[in-house]
């Protein structure tokens, strides 16, 4: 009810009572007794309740009535043409569903606030200075955009801030991670992700515990017994939500830690896309750390920058105020501290940023792709709208008479428009409801797909919420109005007289022509847009095909890969080598395993190592960067990389490499001791490493690039001079193999050396006789037989790895393919609608022609000619736009030009064929028109 009507109705009752009162008084004045007077007055007035109801209805009933009426009309209209309704609803469901799905994911990735209390009070510390200091260590975990800011700080600085800024911050906390930790003591050993946090982490953020308690201040001291707090999902997944988990101990790398708490499920991480399995106090960095960190004490070194600091501003404290205080503390610590990092002139400063703005994480990779998708689905929805508008327009032509009749009977133009809009909004609402179902499925599929590229976990919280719902509601209504408005406006402009008098088949050319201009344009736009999308999809699919058909230089089928990091479990290099050999032997005895080897990196997994070498005939300071792959015995034969000349690496070569490595490390240790003994600042020279050069195998590109026109076998490759490390004896070439892809498929082949692997983590490769995935249990059994506490990670097949490295290409090919087919289908609906309309419109004319002796071919010509013209215009426009647009795709294409004639011709041909098929049904109907029925058509 409107406010206006409420105002008018508010005094109704007292008004009526007043009325009766006056009448009663009048009656008394005429000489009636008071009771009699009142009774007469009431009788004269009538039923008060009914009067009030009727008066109220004056205001209410009209619009409600109309709405019910409109809805009933709309439903009747839909029931009358179920095919039209089905096509419209499905089209809109696809359009709305795709938009909702993509928006849901964007919402999860970009728009969701950090799930802590009052996140707008939280700020993250970043430092700036004119000069990079000499730090001992600097670690970052991908929280900030390090190209712009640096949010890694030292623990001593964190302590200063915590101690000196209690008037500014209601809480300050430091955290770092997540790092990979080897967890044992709860089922099979596994790798888990752990974040270091200061004890006030949970209280500062306002994250409660569902079980147990957070860390105490005592637990963040080097002497404290190790304790951890579990992340909720880890507790659920690995500990099966065991309520008695508090107090249990687990083995982390080589220490034992007690579980004290389980954190609330709502908090996953500050940084979108990041997560951890458990939390541990900062002080545990002494027992549990990554294999790359040096032996220094990260808790006390002001030049080890490795923690992120987050503070919660007290109410009323401004960012600038807090920044000034923090900068004072920072300058004091870093200029005047025990170990100065900066001079006054370096102007070191602290910059505070709100966490929501500063912490990006994996957003940076996913977000642009999502925005691109959002544009694509937006265009798809537009096509869907124009398509449905075309269909509605065609249908409305048949309803002209109906509308004219309504207007003639006194319905206002506004009323007719409203009725038509009710119909289209009803259709779009049904479409939207169906679209939401589609979106639920689509989001599932997409997160599944995205997760595959990120260790199988999609770390964003995806759930429908008010924002997503509002988005869907808005686009649903806008869609309904957008596609309903054109036909509705047209109906409202009807000139009643001619429309009523004349049947559609005899209708004047004018309105026919007017419809066609709009309808034609809609179909041309659809055909053109779908060509653009289809050409883009075609190019992306060709790119994917090119990658698939690419020869990587080794056999990718039937290879199982898995990783081991024995160093985390406390192995020395020598023990490592022994373990690898033992495992290699054990695995090669498994039935069905043809060959086993290992390497520092697995092939085509997006990681590589490289080193600088010096060629003997080059200038003294000359250094050349080449790729290096450290391999185990039989690696080249296991991967089937063909030997071109010389020989592959033998056990004797591995012994030589191990001896050389040991000699090199010995020289380094001697130097370290000598440097400690020498007075500060004086340079201590390295001793020479007395060992044989490491035997290596090089690839064909290496031979052609660096040993042109000579036989590389037996040639020596030197190591460049480096003042900070001993100079090794270099390498000697023992064989040449064919080129194989190393880093990723897209990459050009680089000069590569295959070097014997000595120590360190490694990936194992198993060549199997049958499906490699079926060997996973055997692998686990073999590894656990060697060492129960050694986790196996990163199990996959070589084909999966290649699929993974083609993730972006596959995603784009799949999604663009989907939209290519979708838009093509929509365009066909559009054509079908257009031609059906055309045929229906001209049934009488066609009948006359046939009665006068026109042949089927003439009729076909007549009907299809216009459609062919429209298709041709659409094709030409589409190809022209595609040629202009695909230029921007050249970066993502591989071995196919953006204006690839085959793709464009193929797509155009496909569209032409599909379009003609869409025309077939109506054309057939035209040919089979029975002249007698046609003439009686009215």
């Amino acid at each position, binding site marked *: 009810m409107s406010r206006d*009507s409420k105002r*008018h*109705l508010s*005094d*109704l009752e*007292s*008004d*009526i009572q*007043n*009325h009766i*009162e*006056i*009448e009663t*008084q*009048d009656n008394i004045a005429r000489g009636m007794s008071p009771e009699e007077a009142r009774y007469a007055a009431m009788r*004269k*007035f*009538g*039923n*008060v309740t*009914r*009067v*009030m109801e*009727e*008066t109220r*209805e*004056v*205001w209410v009933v009209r619009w409600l009535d109309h709405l019910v009426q409109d809805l009933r009309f709309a439903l009747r209209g839909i029931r009358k043409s179920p095919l039209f309704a089905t096509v419209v609803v499905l089209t809109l469901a696809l359009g709305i569903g795709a938009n909702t799905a993509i928006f849901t994911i964007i919402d999860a990735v970009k728009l969701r606030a950090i799930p802590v209390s009052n996140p707008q009070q939280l700020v993250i510390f970043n430092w700036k200075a004119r000069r990079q200091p000499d730090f001992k260590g600097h670690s970052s975990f991908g929280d900030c955009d390090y190209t712009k800011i640096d949010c890694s700080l030292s623990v001593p600085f964190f302590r200063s801030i915590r101690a000196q800024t209690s008037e500014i911050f209601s809480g300050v906390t430091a955290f770092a991670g997540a790092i990979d930790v080897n967890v044992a003591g709860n089922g099979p050993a596994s790798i888990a992700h752990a974040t270091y946090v200061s004890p006030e982490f949970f209280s500062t953020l306002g994250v409660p515990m569902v079980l147990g308690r957070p860390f105490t201040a005592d637990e963040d001291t080097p002497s404290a017994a190790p304790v951890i707090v579990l992340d909720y999902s880890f507790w659920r997944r690995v500990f099966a939500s065991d309520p008695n988990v508090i107090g249990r101990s687990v083995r982390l790398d080589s220490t034992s830690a007690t579980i004290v708490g389980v954190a609330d499920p709502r908090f996953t991480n500050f940084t979108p896309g990041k997560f951890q399995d458990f939390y541990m106090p900062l002080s545990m960095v002494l027992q549990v750390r990554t294999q790359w960190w040096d032996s220094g004490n990260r808790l006390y070194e002001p030049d080890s920058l490795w923690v992120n600091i987050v503070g919660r501003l007290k109410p009323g404290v401004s960012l600038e105020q807090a920044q000034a205080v923090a900068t004072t503390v920072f300058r004091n610590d870093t200029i005047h501290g025990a170990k100065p990092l900066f001079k006054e002139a370096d102007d070191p400063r602290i910059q505070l940023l709100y966490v929501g703005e500063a912490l990006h994480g994996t957003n940076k990779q996913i977000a642009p792709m999502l925005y691109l998708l959002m544009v694509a689905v937006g265009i798809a929805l537009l096509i869907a709208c124009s398509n449905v508008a075309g269909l509605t327009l065609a249908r409305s032509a048949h309803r002209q008479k109906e509308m004219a009749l309504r207007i003639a009977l006194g319905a206002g133009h506004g009323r007719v428009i409203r009725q038509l809009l009710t119909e289209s909004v009803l259709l779009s609402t049904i479409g939207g409801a169906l679209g939401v179902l589609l979106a639920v499925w689509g989001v599932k599929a997409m997160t599944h797909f995205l997760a595959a590229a990120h260790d199988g976990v999609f770390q964003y919280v995806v759930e429908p919420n008010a924002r997503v719902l509002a988005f869907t509601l808005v686009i649903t209504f806008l869609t309904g109005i957008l596609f309903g408005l054109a036909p509705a406006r047209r109906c409202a402009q009807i000139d009643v007289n001619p429309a009523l008098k004349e049947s559609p088949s005899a209708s004047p050319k004018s309105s026919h022509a007017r419809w066609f201009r709009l309808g034609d344009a809609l179909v041309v736009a659809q055909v053109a847009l779908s060509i653009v999308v289809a050409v883009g999809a075609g190019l992306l699919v060709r790119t994917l095909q090119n990658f698939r058909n690419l020869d990587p230089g080794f056999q990718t089928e039937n290879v199982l890969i898995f990783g081991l990091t024995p160093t985390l479990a406390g192995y020395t290099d020598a023990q490592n080598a022994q373990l690898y050999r033992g495992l290699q032997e054990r695995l090669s005895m498994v039935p069905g395993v043809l060959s086993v080897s290992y390497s520092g990196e697995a092939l085509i997994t997006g990681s590589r190592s490289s080193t600088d070498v010096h060629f003997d005939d080059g200038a003294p300071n000359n250094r050349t960067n080449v790729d290096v792959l450290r391999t185990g015995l039989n690696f080249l034969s296991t991967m089937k990389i063909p030997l071109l000349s010389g020989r592959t690496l033998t056990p004797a070569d591995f012994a030589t490499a191990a001896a050389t490595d040991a000699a090199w490390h010995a020289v380094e240790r001697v130097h370290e001791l000598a440097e400690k003994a020498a007075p500060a600042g004086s340079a201590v020279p390295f001793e020479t490493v007395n060992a044989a050069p490491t035997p290596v195998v090089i690839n064909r590109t290496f031979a052609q690039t660096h040993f042109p026109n000579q036989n590389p076998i037996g040639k020596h490759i030197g190591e460049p001079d480096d003042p900070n490390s001993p100079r090794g004896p270099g390498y000697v070439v023992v064989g040449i193999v064919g080129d194989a892809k190393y880093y990723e498929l897209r990459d050009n082949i680089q000069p590569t050396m295959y070097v014997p692997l000595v120590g360190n983590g490694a990936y194992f490769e198993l060549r199997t006789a049958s499906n490699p995935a079926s060997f996973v249990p055997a692998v686990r059994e073999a590894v656990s037989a060697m060492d129960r506490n050694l986790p196996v990670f990163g199990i996959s097949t070589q084909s999966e790895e290649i699929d993974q490295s083609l993730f972006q290409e596959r995603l784009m090919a799949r999604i663009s393919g989907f939209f290519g087919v979708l838009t093509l289908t929509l365009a066909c609906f559009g054509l079908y609608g257009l031609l059906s309309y055309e045929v229906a419109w001209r049934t009488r004319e066609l009948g006359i022609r046939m009665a006068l002796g026109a042949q089927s071919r003439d009729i076909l010509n007549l009907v299809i000619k216009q459609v062919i013209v429209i298709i041709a215009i659409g094709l030409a426009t589409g190809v022209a736009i595609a040629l202009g647009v695909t230029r921007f795709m050249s970066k993502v294409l591989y071995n196919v030009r953006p204006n690839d004639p085959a793709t464009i011709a193929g797509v155009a041909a496909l569209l032409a064929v599909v379009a003609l098929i869409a025309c077939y049904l109506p054309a057939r109907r035209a040919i089979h028109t029975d002249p007698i029925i046609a003439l009686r058509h009215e």
Partner: protein
Amino acid sequence: MSTKDELQRIEMLQGTLDLLILRTLLLGPAHGHAIAKAIEFRSDEVLQVEQGSLYPALHRLIKRKWISAADGTSENNRRAKFYSLTPKGRAQLDLETRKWDKFAGAIARILRPAKQENES
């Protein structure tokens, strides 16, 4: 009497009542009871308005913006709504009056053709 007939009669009555209200308000603002009294009085008590039906009619007229309502005080010192004619209502009254004259004239001609002939 069938429902349909009854509906038609009410329609007629409503339309007539609307016209009568507009005509009454031409003399100046009045509250509900005064309007009912005026109609009865001016028709020499021939037209007995069922007073309750006045209110839906008044609200219908407000909604069409032919009359407007304002708060005032009635003769018994109570707060009451006073209704007055809007310019739009005045125009409508003109139109309706002319229509009514035509209608009444036509009916009269059909019912009393002899008299009409005598007069002309």
